[in-house]
């Protein structure tokens, strides 16, 4: 039977315009206006604190400005300085290393713990809260604790390794181990966020899908691959995008635990931008670097959104 009536009010835009009157523009509808009003505070915040600084950085990147003397026009010179600057490339490489190792590790740990917590454990809320604690703690405090954990001779990390007959390295002052040490700490610090998102995603998967899979005789691995992963892909996508953006902006733990050393082994791009702008008073060059970082993040996020269409399954 076809429905011929509706109890819903007919949207203003759906009313047939009379031949003499112009249609009301969508933005003048009462509903649209209400929506804009609700959006306004957030929009103003976005314009002032996000879009504004991005535009300002674009302008400043074309200037020579030491904060005090009047700025002078530099054109693209600040961007040209990036090429021969070894510290910039080292910082970019370190940031990429940090991101492409820490993000997959964090996701693996988060997913593993979410799967574990989703097994109908008793007192799941207690475990969930405990595991979320590192994420809720401020990075500065965590970084100082990890400095102590990493002390070469008396630190807990090397003491534990020693139990297995492994002579641990001098983590934070070693050329090869300083960055892995930061990554390990960052994974510990941030897995809680992904875990909570994954757990919510897992609990939203309809049980009938698993039952159907069981009837079809799937193994647990096949069930995970063909039911859990596709159904969890929106959550996975969200965590990957936000984690990569966050990791490209890594700053505080590197500043506190290694100050970018030894050498420039743990100097990250945001740390270098901060130093260029506020310690070396080279605002134009710092703005140029920050625009490059911005471009990298936009590029990577856009690529992720491009693949999202093929890899992410929305249950609608």
């Amino acid at each position: 039977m076809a429905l011929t009536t509706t109890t819903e009010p007919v949207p203003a835009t759906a009313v047939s315009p009379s031949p003499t009157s112009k249609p009301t523009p969508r933005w003048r509808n009462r509903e649209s206006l209400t929506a804009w009003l609700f959006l306004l505070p957030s929009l103003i915040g976005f314009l002032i604190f996000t879009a504004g600084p991005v535009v300002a950085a674009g302008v400043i990147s074309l200037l020579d400005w030491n904060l005090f003397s009047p700025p002078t026009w530099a054109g693209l010179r600040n961007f040209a300085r990036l090429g021969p600057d070894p510290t910039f490339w080292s910082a970019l490489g370190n940031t990429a290393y940090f991101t492409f190792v820490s993000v997959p590790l964090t996701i693996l740990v988060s997913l593993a713990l979410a799967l574990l917590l989703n097994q109908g454990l008793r007192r799941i809320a207690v475990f969930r809260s405990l595991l979320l604690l590192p994420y809720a703690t401020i990075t500065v405090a965590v970084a100082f604790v990890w400095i102590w954990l990493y002390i070469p001779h008396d630190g807990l990390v090397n003491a534990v390794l020693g139990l297995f007959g492994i002579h641990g390295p001098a983590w934070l002052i070693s050329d090869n181990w300083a960055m892995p040490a930061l990554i390990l700490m960052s994974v510990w610090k941030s897995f809680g966020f992904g875990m909570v998102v994954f757990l919510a995603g897992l609990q939203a998967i309809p049980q009938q899908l698993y039952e159907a899979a069981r009837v079809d005789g799937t193994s647990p691995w096949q069930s995970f691959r063909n039911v859990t992963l596709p159904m969890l892909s929106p959550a996975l996508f969200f965590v990957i995008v936000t984690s990569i953006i966050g990791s490209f902006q890594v700053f505080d733990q590197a500043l506190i635990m290694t100050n970018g050393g030894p050498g420039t082994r743990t100097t990250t791009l945001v740390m270098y931008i901060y130093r260029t702008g506020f310690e070396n008073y080279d605002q134009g060059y710092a703005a140029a670097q920050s625009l490059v970082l911005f471009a990298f993040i936009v590029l990577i996020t856009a690529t992720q959104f491009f693949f999202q269409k093929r890899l992410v399954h929305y249950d609608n």
Partner: protein
Amino acid sequence: MSTKLSRRSFLELTGLAGLGLAVAGCSSGPPAGSATWAMWSSSAAERKVWQDFSAYVEQQLKVKSVPTLTPSGPYPTKLDLQLVSGTAGLVTALNGTLIPTYAARGAHRPLDDLIEGDSDFDLDDFYQPIQKISSFNGKTYAIGFDVAPTVMYYNKSLLQKQGIALPSRTEPMPWATFRELAVELTHAPDQYGFTCAPAIDDLVSWIYCAGGNVMSEDASRSILGEPEAMEALQFVIDLFVKDKVTPPIKNLVTESSLSNFLEGNVAFMQNGPWQVVNVRKAKFDWDIIPFPAGAAGSTPRVSGSSFAIPSGVREGADLDLAWKLLKTLTSTGALDIYAKAGRNNPARFSAGSAFQPPPDNLGIVQDILAGKVAGGHPFDVTTNWNQVKQLLGQDLPRTFLGQVPVPEAIAGVTPRLDVLMRQHLDNIRQATARRG
């Protein structure tokens, strides 16, 4: 009697209250005519000293004193933002190493006209090194409040326990003797001979004593690779890597020679008299001696801090008050407060008697500055010292860890230092042109 408040009235009242708060927030600030000044302060004891300064200013100038105290770490960034936004105080404290940086950028004004026009102000009462530290490009940009040479602290109890004769209180020991003593006193991992920070700030004293420097006389190039500086660098690095007379470096960020020394198992610590106030907490007997003498004698780094007037202070009443405030903050009376609290050696000769023992041999600080004992070398810095320090801070610590030999580290860092030196000369040229 109860009054019903409609939703509309409630919203109106809330809006008005918010507006009122915003206006109150925007209009808050020190009252006009206040003596505003900025200073770093990282502890309750330090804060107390600056509060006493503030009371002294109010008593002397009969105006409200408004100090803005910020922990030393974020102080430069906060000061920058205040200077740029025009909200800095009439007077701001500056670490000596940053005076050329601020002066070259035009952030602070020269004081020569004010000094010349004030017959009450006697610049000669200030030690020569702090006058040099507070100058840039031939002009005085700041007036010092403290100045001191680096000295050698030693653990008297430890030396006596080991049956080793106490070092001379006035004669600097030669480097070779110092090294022998440090080796003899080292019984790792329980006891070590020496501690210093693995950074240029400490290395530079050894470089000066060897007759070297970070930069050439005209600051046009780095001379860290020349034999004098290389000898000094190798000597100190060997103490860490070859002789292993220093406590092992656990972390390059939190490594602190002071905490190593306060453990009580380190014989010698290189540091300045500004740490006397902290070492007084030590649970052992200790004292200070002149810095060990290298080929050029005992001429360690002399550093200090000063007060300066931002360029943004308007001519007229504001500048008059700023100058009076600066004179008060660096007066003998104020520096007496500072020295009596044991913070550091005051920059004025006339306030010297207020910097009193312990330790017993504290008098050598002023004798060194006056040229009666050993010697000193004002800290030579550039107008981009932050960058120089940053570059050296990246590459030099690896030599302390034995990861890179000294010649390789210096060869790697020299071309980049030379670029910074050229930038420094450009900065001076621009500052001169601006002033002209």
